Structures are given as structure tokens and as C-alpha cells.
């Protein structure tokens, strides 16, 4: 079997203009009374893609998922699945299945009857149902629990039953609503990788809704960051993290330091921004904003160096400050550095060696610095 990595690396149908989307959401709006849950939203999701809808609660991601499942109808716009419009098709006639956040297991049925439920609705012959249920139980490693009822299972086991049940009918698309939300941290991390393997193995299209950015970053091929019923950015996890297209995305995904300023020069693939904090940053930018325009500069904590000595690049991309707080996390240390103007920035450094001689301490005068390609320009 090919390793997951090699398949993943070559998988990027969204870059190919000839590829046909499997799910096409076209200008979909959903209103509940005066409240606009989803606002003129368009999205393409490709076959075999692991697609994540990421956003805070109330951003419309769950509503979009429920429209894909058929529990809600769009107020306007259209959703096309595999070339066919889903308008007016009830949930029980759609070739998609959903894994619910609460798992929604049938409490009065055993594990095997839960899994067999969808197959029975289709009138599948009994022997085939038994074989398929067996296969699904093995897939989620629950073969010993076939005769149990949901309340006789732990949280992690229930999650697996819910997954097996939603996969039993071999849907074209699996919708997952906060699939790992109810699991504890350790189990969640394990399950993330299991879900990815499973998706590759079965060759299905997964659409997952989550508010957990780490979950989305780990699992998804592409992430759609949503806010106020709109998609703010759709991109691969590295693009979202390293090249956020807006202040919102930069701030929403991971930790970030944002410096506001005015563009002082632009050209040759770089831009210089005079920040309000008092120093100038030079940053690589293929499409820099015009000179004189207001712009922001975003840089992640792990890309900022903290040291006692004046860096060679100073005064560009460097500033003086004092250490305000130190958070020791084991694998890395987070410094809060208070700059001259009072702005506190975050910088983190990997603890690559066990014991550092003369480590940085509180109240110490330090320099912070970063490379030209460490951060991005934010135009908004």
C-alpha cells in the first residue's frame, strides 16, 4: 500500500482547472427569520477530499452541513452533488450520511442493529446485512461489542459505533459534525489519524465541521475558515497558517503578533512597513500594497528570535524590549516580551537542549528579530 504521505502530496484537484467538483455549493443563503446563518456562500469540494469547515460557534458551519444532509433547505442558491441538484430531495433519499456530534445512537438497539439500521431501510438481504455489519465492526475494532447497547459503551466506543453506522451504507459523502468533540485529548489525537487512514482506505469524500483548529489542520486536505455565514479563506492547512489572507484568519488560526503601520516602500518582491511600534519591517510580498497605504504585519511566535545581542539585521526587523513573562511548556518556552512602546508580543523557542547555561530570565533586556520571509502583509 502506498503511504498516506505520497498520496497526499500528489492530491490537489483544486489546483487543476479541469477537475470537476463533487460537491458544488452555489450562492447558498440560509435565513432563520431575520438571522442570516449562511450568507451567499459558494464552495467546491472535490472527490476523495477531506474537507474541513472551521469556525467559531454560530458562524454557519453546522447549518451548511445540515443543508448538505437535507435537514435544512437553502433559502436561496443551490447545492449540487455529483452533478445532481439536491434541491427538494429529503434526507432519506440523499446518498450522503452524517455522523452526529451527539452520536445519536438508537438507545434501544444493540450495536449491530444500530449499524444495520440503514441497510435494513434499503431492504438489503439479511445475509448481506450480516456480512456488512461484521465488516464494519471489524473496521472500527468493535467486534466484541456487537450485542451491547449504547449505554453499555464508553464514549470512545460510542464514537466508533456512530462512525461505523454512518459508513455502513457506503455513502458517497460522509458528513461529520464535530466528530471528536466529546472525546478526551489523548483519544482525540489518536482518532484523528484513524479517521484520516479510514478516509484514504475507503476513498470517500469527508466533510467535517469543527471549531478545533488543531483538528482541522491535522486531518483536512483543505480548510474553509468561516465567519458570519461567509467563507473567509479556503486553502490547505500550511497556506492557511503561513499565508492567511486576512487579519481574521491570521488571528483565528494559531497565535500571532500583528503590527499595524504604513507602507513606506514597495517593490522587488518586498515591502517595508513603518510600524506604529516604532521599527520598520521588511517583508517578502509578491503583491505588495501601494506606498502610503495602511497595512498590517503578522508574524507567528515561533518565527521570532529572542536574544541578548543586537541582531545583524537591526534596525530592520528587530526591536528592543524586556522579558515580561515566561511560560515553560516542556517542549518549548513562550516569552512575552514588552517592547519600548508597551506592546507585548509573543515569541516561542524550541527547547532543543536539556539545560541551557544562563537562560533568559524575567525583566531582562532583549532583542527580538525575525527574517524577511517570517511573516505576511495583511492588507485589510
Amino acid at each position, binding site marked *: 500500500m502506498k503511504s498516506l504521505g505520497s498520496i497526499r502530496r500528489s492530491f490537489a484537484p483544486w489546483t487543476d482547472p479541469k477537475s470537476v467538483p463533487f460537491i458544488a455549493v452555489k450562492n447558498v443563503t440560509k435565513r432563520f427569520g431575520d438571522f442570516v446563518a449562511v450568507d451567499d456562500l459558494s464552495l467546491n469540494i472535490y472527490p476523495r477530499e477531506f474537507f474541513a469547515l472551521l469556525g467559531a460557534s454560530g458562524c454557519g458551519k453546522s447549518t451548511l452541513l445540515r443543508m448538505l*444532509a*437535507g*435537514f435544512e433547505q437553502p433559502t436561496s442558491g443551490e447545492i449540487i452533488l455529483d452533478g445532481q441538484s439536491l434541491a427538494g430531495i*429529503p*434526507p*432519506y*433519499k440523499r446518498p*450522503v*450520511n*452524517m455522523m*452526529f*456530534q*451527539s452520536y*445519536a*445512537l*438508537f*438507545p*434501544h438497539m444493540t450495536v449491530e442493529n444500530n449499524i444495520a*439500521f*440503514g441497510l435494513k*431501510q*434499503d431492504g438489503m438481504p439479511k445475509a448481506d446485512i450480516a456480512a456488512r455489519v461484521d465488516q464494519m465492526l471489524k473496521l472500527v475494532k468493535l467486534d466484541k461489542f456487537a450485542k451491547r*447497547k449504547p*449505554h*453499555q*459503551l*464508553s464514549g470512545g*466506543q460510542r464514537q466508533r459505533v456512530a462512525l461505523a*453506522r*454512518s459508513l455502513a*451504507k457506503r455513502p458517497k459523502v460522509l458528513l461529520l459534525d464535530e466528530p471528536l468533540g466529546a472525546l478526551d485529548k489523548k483519544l482525540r489525537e489518536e482518532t484523528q489519524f484513524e479517521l484520516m487512514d479510514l478516509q484514504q482506505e475507503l476513498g470517500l469524500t469527508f466533510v467535517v465541521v469543527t471549531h478545533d483548529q488543531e483538528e482541522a489542520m491535522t486531518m483536512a486536505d483543505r480548510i474553509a475558515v468561516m465567519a458570519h455565514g461567509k467563507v473567509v479563506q479556503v486553502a490547505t492547512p500550511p497556506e492557511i497558517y503561513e499565508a492567511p489572507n486576512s487579519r481574521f484568519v491570521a488571528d483565528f488560526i494559531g497565535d500571532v503578533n500583528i503590527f499595524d503601520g504604513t507602507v513606506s516602500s514597495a517593490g522587488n518582491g518586498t515591502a517595508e512597513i513603518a510600524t506604529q511600534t516604532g521599527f520598520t519591517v521588511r517583508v517578502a510580498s509578491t503583491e505588495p500594497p501601494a506606498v502610503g497605504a495602511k497595512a498590517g504585519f503578522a508574524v507567528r511566535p515561533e518565527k521570532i528570535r529572542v536574544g541578548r545581542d543586537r541582531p545583524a539585521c537591526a534596525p530592520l526587523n528587530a526591536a528592543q524590549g524586556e522579558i515580561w513573562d515566561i511560560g515553560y511548556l516542556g517542549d518549548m518556552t513562550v516569552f512575552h516580551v514588552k517592547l519600548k512602546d508597551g506592546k507585548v508580543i509573543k515569541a516561542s523557542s524550541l527547547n532543543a537542549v536539556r539545560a541551557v547555561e544562563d537562560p533568559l530570565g524575567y525583566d531582562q533586556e532583549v532583542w527580538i528579530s525575525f527574517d524577511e520571509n517570517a511573516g505576511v502583509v495583511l492588507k485589510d
Partner: protein
Amino acid sequence: MQRWSRFNIASIVIGFAFLYLPIVLLVVFSFNESKLVTVWAGFSTKWYVQLFHNQALLDAAWVTIRVGLISATVATVLGTLAALAMTRYTRFRGRMLFSGMIYAPLVMPEVITGLSMLLLFVAIGFDRGFWTLTLAHITFTMCFVAVVVQSRLLSFDRSIEEAAMDLGATPVATFLQVTLPVIAPAVFSGWVLAFTLSLDDLVISSFTSGPGATTLPMRIYSQVRLGVTPEINAVCTILIGIVAIGVLIASVVSRSREIQRVKDEQAAFAH
């Protein structure tokens, strides 16, 4: 362990005496040898034997059971549907009015319910008898079923219905295979409540029944007017016995189920 103060003991004794002394007296005197209700003359079961030769009483018991079974069943169907409508469609016009109208019979004086039905039956020329009696019982027990089922539906996780539909079950199949089995205990207790209410109703029955459809409470009441006999005590003792056994079974079943559930959950988390 908590200590029992004298005050607590006294209040419990008085409270229970207040509740059960009349019933104990009734049961004791049902085994009285003497025909005089208040004079004890020795133990006997003769009134129970005599009871089973009293055809009028047996007929009344049979009518009561038939009315109870039919009315409880119909009331359960109607009450469950009403409860479903009330919890599912929370935003239709006039919902408040509708819900208020469902609960009104709960607080309506029985005399008024009975009288209004009597007037209705007279107005439409429906001969009073077994069926008018049954209809009246359906009417007043239905709202009790609706209340019991509705309280269960409020805590019902609707995502399991969505899951069923998502898996290909039509709305009807979803109701029959998922919703109904899950709320079945509440529907059943609604039925038991309706049956019990129908069993011991006197006021509405008196208004709505006709010749040949005398229920047990009506028969007992009319006999008591001629004087209380130990025979009546015996009937009542049997009724008390039936009700007590029913309550006992219900509580034992639900208790053992609860214990089983807790055990299962502990077993699940031990893994």
C-alpha cells in the same frame, strides 16, 4: 446515619395514620363475620364468597374493565399525537391557545365536564350507554396522557430521528422504529394512568352513562346509599389489592431497570 428526632417520628406516624387509617379500617372490616360494619365479630371470608355471586356487581366490574381498556387505548393514541404536535411544531399560530386547551380538562371541575358532555349527547340525540361512557372517558383521560408523554418528549434527543432519516428511514419508518420505541415507557405509563382514572371515575360516568352501562364505582356508590355492607368493603379491598400490586410491579420493574443501567454504565467505563 441521621438521628430521628421525636418530632420527625411523630409527624411521620400522624401523616401515615391520616392517609391509611381509613383504608386499614375498610380492609379489616371486610373480613368481619358480622353484617354490622362497625362491630367486630370474628374473622371470616364469607363476604368475598358472596361477592362472586352478586351478578349486578360482577356486571358492573365487567363494564368498568371494558370501558377502561377501550378508553385508555384510544386516549393514549390521541394524547400521544397531541403531545407530539405540541413538542414538534413549536411555532405554529395559536400554539398557546392549543396547549392551554389541552390542559384545561386537568383543572376543569368534573361536574362541568360531565354536564357539558351530557348536554352534547342529548343535543345530538346520542342514546346514553356504553359508548357515550367510553367517549367521555377518552375525553377526560386524553389530556393526562398528553401531559405524561409531552414531559418525556421534552428530553427526547431529536438528533436520533434525524440520524434515522439520514440513514434512509422515511418519516413514518422513523416514527415506528425509533421514536415510538424510545418513548414507549412514557406512552405505557400514560396508558396505565388513563386506565386507572377511567377505573375509578364516578362523577363524569354518572352524567354520561345510561341504562345497562353501570360502572363499579357507580354501583358501589348506589349500594352505599342503602347502607354500607361488608360486601362493599370486600370489593374495595380487592380494588386496593389490584392497584397496590400494579404500583408495586411498576416500581420494582423501573427500579431493577435503573440498577441494571447503572451497573452497565459502570462496566462500560471500567474498560
